[in-house]
Each structure stands twice: as C-alpha cells, then as structure tokens.
C-alpha cells in the first residue's frame, strides 16, 4: 500500500511537471490541543493530561487531490495514543464528467443513514471511517424535462474500535452500491445495498464472532408546492458463524423505517418525523451492545429527537436504542416577523414491546414478549421505557442592540428494569434557559446565559428534587476576542466528583481570521456527550486546556 501511494504521488508530480496548464494549490488545517488537570470517575480522582496535534493537508493539482492527516496524540484525550499518518487519500473529481473517485480513507452517508452512515467524532473517540475505494457518477439526461441519475459504489475496510471499551474491536469488509433517479424535478427514488463480512469481538475481549450481513434499503422523496415528504425503509439480515460464545449459528432479521413530512411557507415551518427501528428486537437479557446481530456500526439513522443547544438540557439526552425504538417528533417554527421567532418541539419514543418473566422456578429468567397491535406507535407504558419531551422557545431581536431568547423544556425519561421493576428509574427534568445579548457598541457585545433546571429522579427518592443552575457571562469584541466566565451549581448528591459548584473561564482570540487560540481553566462538570445518537459519559475535569486551530 505504501508503495502504491508513493507511486501515485510521483505520478501526480510528474503530471504537474509535464502538463501545460496547471492549477496547483495546497492547504493545511492544523489543530493543536493540550490539557492538564484532574478527572473524576465514580471511584477516584486521577491526573489527566493530553497532547494532540492533528494536521490535515491537501494538495490539489487540477482535478486531483491528495490529502492526508498526520497526527501526534500522545497522550490522547479520548481513544488510543497514535503517532503517524492516520488518514490519507487520493481523489479525482471531474465536474464536467461528473465523476468522483476516491482511494484511501473516507466517510460517507447514503440517504438518511439507515444502511450506510460512517463518520468520525474525536470527542467520542468514535470513527467508523472506511479505507478503500469509492466511485460516484451522476448525469442529467434531457434539457426540457431533465432526468437525473446518480450512482455510487464503494468498498473497503472498517476497523472500528469500541469507543466505550478501547480494547474491543470490530472489523468489517464492506461493499455498498447506491442508485438514485430523479425522473421528475420533485420526485426522487433511491436504492442502496450493503454487504459486509465482519469479525465482532465479544465482551471477553477474546472470542471473535464472524458475521455476514446484508442490508438493502429503498427510499424516496417528494416535493410538491409547500410540502416535502421523505420515506426510507431498510432491511437487515445478519448470520453468524458458531463459536464458543454462540455455539449455534444465528440468523437474525431486522428492519428500520424513517419518514418525514414537512410543510413550509413564509413565516411558518412544520416538520413531522417518524422512526420505527427494529434492527435487533431481542429480550432484555440479550440487549448487549456487543451482540453480533445488533445494528451495524456503519449504520446510523436519524435519532428523531431535537438536538439541544442548552448546556443543561443537552447534558442528559435520551440515548436512542436503534435496535428497538419507535417514536415521533413534531417541530414547528413560527416567525410572524423578522424580529420574532417561536419554536415548538414535541418528541416521544419508546420500545416496541413489553417482556414478562414467565419462569416459575425463581431460578432463572424466561422472557415472553407481550405483543401489542399498535406497536408502530410509541407508548407511555412504564414497561416500554418511554421518553417524551416538550420544548418551547421564543427569540426576539428587540432592537439592533438587544436580543433575547427564552425557552422552556420538560423531559421525562423512564429506564425500566425488567429483571427488577423496583430498580427502574424515572427522571423528570424541567429546564428554563434564558439568553440575553446586548451590543455596547458596534464592536463590543455582552452576552448572558442563565439556565435553571429542576430534576426529579425516583432513584434519589430520599432526597428532594435536584436543582442545577448554569450561568455564562461573555464579553466579546468583534471580530477577534471573546472572554467567558462559566459557573454552575447543582444539589445533585450523585455527582461523581462530589462537587456542588463549578467555575471556569475561557479566552478565545483570533490571531487571524483562520488562526484561533483558546485557553480555558477551572472546573467542568461531566455528563453525557452525544453525537448522532452515539453517547459516552464525559467525566468531570478540573484543570487547564489550550487549543490552537489554524488554517494555512
């Protein structure tokens, strides 16, 4: 592989020398990060230090792009230490011929990601990137009533490291074919097929289960006047080879469906989303995230819930179970004037079925699924671990200088424990985030964020409701300087660090428009951090962080 890349580079340079008209451009995007302090898990406090430098370089010669990421992460903040070339690729992009070819590392999403959505999130140490080949082609036939077609094939290897257990890995050889046709301007049909062979490491970090999976998907979109409709359905088949962990080979079937309907006109936008994910419907004792028949790591459908920007609301998100979840979301944006915008969001989700223990011996669990005819709808029954939320927000540009935003959020999460229902947990959160911004002059602005949250957790029944407050005061000078002071207070007795107060400050300074230096210090509260429904718990941190982001 190394020789191949050297050869490609030499070919590129040779072409650069001999070609008559050359368009050669280069760019570098570099991020330097350093942190030093103490971190708390539920057991102890320990030193935490990280030093990372990630440089993404691109060299463009006419229609060719050669890119690579050189990384030094030693020690890394999240994940395994690394030093060397993390990513590299060669891309050919011909706009006239509408051909795009890429060899090397890439991420991709097909449609809404029900069968193919690979991405990277360094903050979660999550990376499902593919190392392989991707060829995409699109063409438009006809002028008066054009018919557009788009086709893509890709294949390669995924070396996925479990972001919650860095010793556990899963590897896949993936092949994907995608085709889309737009026979009318407002109508599109698409199909996708993924075939993968994988090796999934078990919880014991030794046993490997070899699997084969097939995922066909069909989707369509229709835009008619003010209405937009999207529908996607994916089927999943996974078969495993017998091993010591699973003595009998398993063939498991699953499916997923996602749909959205939106209506919009000047001043009003309404979006209704529906999800029905049944990628691996299993009884409670089999809900193991290392189970080989689970949703594949290269899948990542929409969560179907609101993505919050409030610090306190986003700290306790609902963790979507893509293997077994049905739900819906309604989002309404109403802007009666250019100064006033209102947003109402209603979301709901639950599992499909309840499971009863029918064992009479008292020695084991024998689960029996309780079917319900309306399992295509979410339920509020405790046994189905329901989640719901109501969010209402008003933002108003009072004058050229004054801006305000007030919101109210109510969330209910039920984490049902089938084995011991008394150990189930119900969490109710009510949050009021407020943001005020006032421009002192055309360059100087003050911003205040105040958030108050009341939490009732049934597993904390001996204590009163928890109260959390978050206050952030920022002073900024356009376009280069921001100073922020963050304070947080909580009465939560279960906080891992044992703290009740957190104070931190940060300074962000743009050395140039593309070179940004950020320094922060103090105590930071931990919590769940999620991207695309993938969540990990980030522990509280007390220390100092420095980052320098540069584009050359």
């Amino acid at each position, binding site marked *: 592989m190394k020789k191949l890349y050297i050869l490609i580079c*030499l070919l590129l340079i040779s072409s650069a020398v001999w070609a008559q008209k050359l368009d050669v451009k280069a760019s570098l995007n570099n991020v330097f990060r350093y942190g030093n302090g103490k971190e708390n898990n539920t057991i102890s406090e320990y030193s935490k230090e990280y030093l990372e430098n990630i440089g993404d370089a691109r060299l463009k010669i006419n229609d060719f792009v050669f890119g690579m990421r050189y990384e030094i992460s030693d020690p890394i903040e999240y994940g395994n230490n690394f030093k060397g070339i993390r990513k590299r690729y060669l891309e050919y992009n011909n706009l006239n011929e509408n051909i795009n070819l890429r060899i090397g590392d890439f991420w991709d999403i097909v449609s809404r990601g029900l069968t193919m959505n690979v991405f990277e999130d360094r903050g979660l140490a999550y990376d499902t990137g593919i190392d392989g080949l991707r060829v995409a082609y699109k063409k438009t036939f006809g002028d008066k009533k054009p018919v557009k077609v788009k086709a893509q094939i890709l294949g390669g290897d995924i070396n996925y490291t479990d972001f919650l257990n860095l010793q556990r890995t899963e590897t896949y050889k993936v092949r994907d074919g995608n085709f889309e046709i737009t026979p009318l301007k407002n109508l599109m049909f698409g199909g996708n097929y993924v075939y993968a062979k994988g090796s999934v490491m078990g919880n014991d970090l030794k046993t490997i289960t070899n699997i084969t999976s097939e995922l066909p998907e069909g989707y369509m979109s229709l835009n008619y006047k003010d209405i937009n409709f999207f529908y996607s359905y994916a089927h999943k088949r996974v078969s495993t080879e017998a091993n010591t962990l699973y003595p009998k080979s398993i063939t498991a079937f699953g499916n997923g469906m996602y749909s959205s309907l939106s209506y919009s006109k000047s001043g009003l936008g309404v979006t209704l989303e529906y999800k029905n994910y049944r990628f691996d419907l299993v009884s409670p004792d089999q809900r193991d995230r290392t189970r080989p028949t689970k949703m594949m790591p290269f899948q990542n459908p929409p969560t179907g819930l609101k993505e919050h920007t409030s610090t306190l609301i986003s700290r306790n998100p609902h963790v979507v179970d893509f293997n077994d979840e049905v739900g819906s979301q309604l989002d309404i944006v109403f802007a009666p004037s250019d100064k006033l915008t209102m947003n109402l969001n209603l979301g709901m989700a639950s599992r499909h079925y309840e499971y009863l223990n029918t064992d009479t011996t008292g020695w084991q669990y024998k689960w029996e699924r309780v079917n319900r005819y309306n399992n295509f709808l979410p339920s509020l029954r405790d046994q189905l671990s329901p989640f719901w939320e109501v969010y209402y927000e008003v933002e108003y540009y009072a004058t050229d200088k004054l801006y305000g935003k007030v919101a109210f959020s109510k969330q209910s999460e039920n984490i049902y424990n089938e084995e011991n229902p008394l150990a189930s947990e119900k969490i109710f959160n009510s949050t009021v985030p407020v943001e005020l911004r006032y421009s002192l002059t055309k360059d100087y602005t003050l911003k205040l964020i105040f958030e108050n949250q009341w939490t009732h957790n049934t597993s904390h029944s001996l204590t009163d409701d928890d109260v959390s407050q978050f206050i952030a005061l920022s002073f900024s000078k356009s376009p280069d300087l921001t100073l922020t002071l963050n304070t947080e207070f909580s009465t939560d007795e279960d906080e891992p660090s044992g703290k009740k107060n957190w104070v931190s400050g940060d300074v962000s300074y743009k050395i140039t428009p593309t070179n940004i230096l950020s320094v922060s210090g103090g105590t930071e509260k931990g919590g769940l951090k999620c991207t695309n429904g993938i969540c990990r718990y980030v522990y509280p941190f007390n220390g100092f962080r420095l980052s320098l982001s540069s584009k050359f």
Partner: protein
Amino acid sequence: MKKVVFLFVFTLFLSGFLKSQTYSDFTLQDLEGNDVTLSKLLEKGPVLMSFWATWCSPCKEEMKKVNPIYEKYKDSGFTYLAINQDNQKSVSKVKSYIDAQSYKFPVVFDTDKRVFEAYSGKDEMPYALLIGKNKEILSVHTGFKTGDEVKIEEEVKAALGIK
C-alpha cells in the same frame, strides 16, 4: 511511511503554490432540488458562501445579520450562499426553518460534507468564505460574533468595487 510524509511535505512546500484556502467549483442541490453551481454564481459577482447547520446558534445569527446585506447588494451581483451541513438527524427541518424565516438567498445541501472538506472545513461553524468574481478567496471567517456583519459588509462592498 516516513518516505510518504517526506514526499508529501516536500511537494507541499516546494511547489511554491501555498495558499491559505483553495477555490474548488461544485454543484449542489438547493431546497427545491435545483442544481446550484458556484462558478455560475460567480459570473454575476462575488459570493459569500457560509457553512451552517440548524443546531448552530451563531450560524442562525449570522444569517439574520447577513440577510440584509444580501438584500442590499444582490442587484449588484452579490450572492450569499448558505451551504447546509445538517446531518441525517436534522436535515428534514432545514427547508421549514429557511421558509419560516422568509430568507430568499440560495440554500444548498452538502449532507456528505464533501464541499466542506474541500474548503478545509473542520468542526467550527459558521465557516464563511468570500470569493471574488475572479475565483480568488478574498476573506475567511470562522465563527460569528455580533458586530462581524459590519466587517463582512465592508468586504462585500470592496469585492463589488463600491466605495
């Protein structure tokens, strides 16, 4: 692998063509399914292209503040092109948000982030680049602070040759 690094770095720095950002043409679909090509927009005049997402508050503020600039100079050939980066989670809400705000500037989808990557986009948003008619990148803005719109308007005027 060291050879690869050496070769690449050698090529990068000895090429003598090092520029801060590189222009790259693209065609993306707008909210109505029409193709929007950057080079065609540039034939009319400068383009401020900004990468944004519905979950990004500073991006929404930038739109609110840059929209009047677009309305003021669009007849002079200026285009504000909003390139959406929403992922599969929230892409369904993009059109309803834009329509509700009654924005008239072009909004295109870059769901797979290929254009974002081509313009060295990383994690920060909004990320805006002002491109002159001659396809030269005139300025780059990472993030948005209240008051940035003043500088942006000055840059747009300069790109249009308005004093």
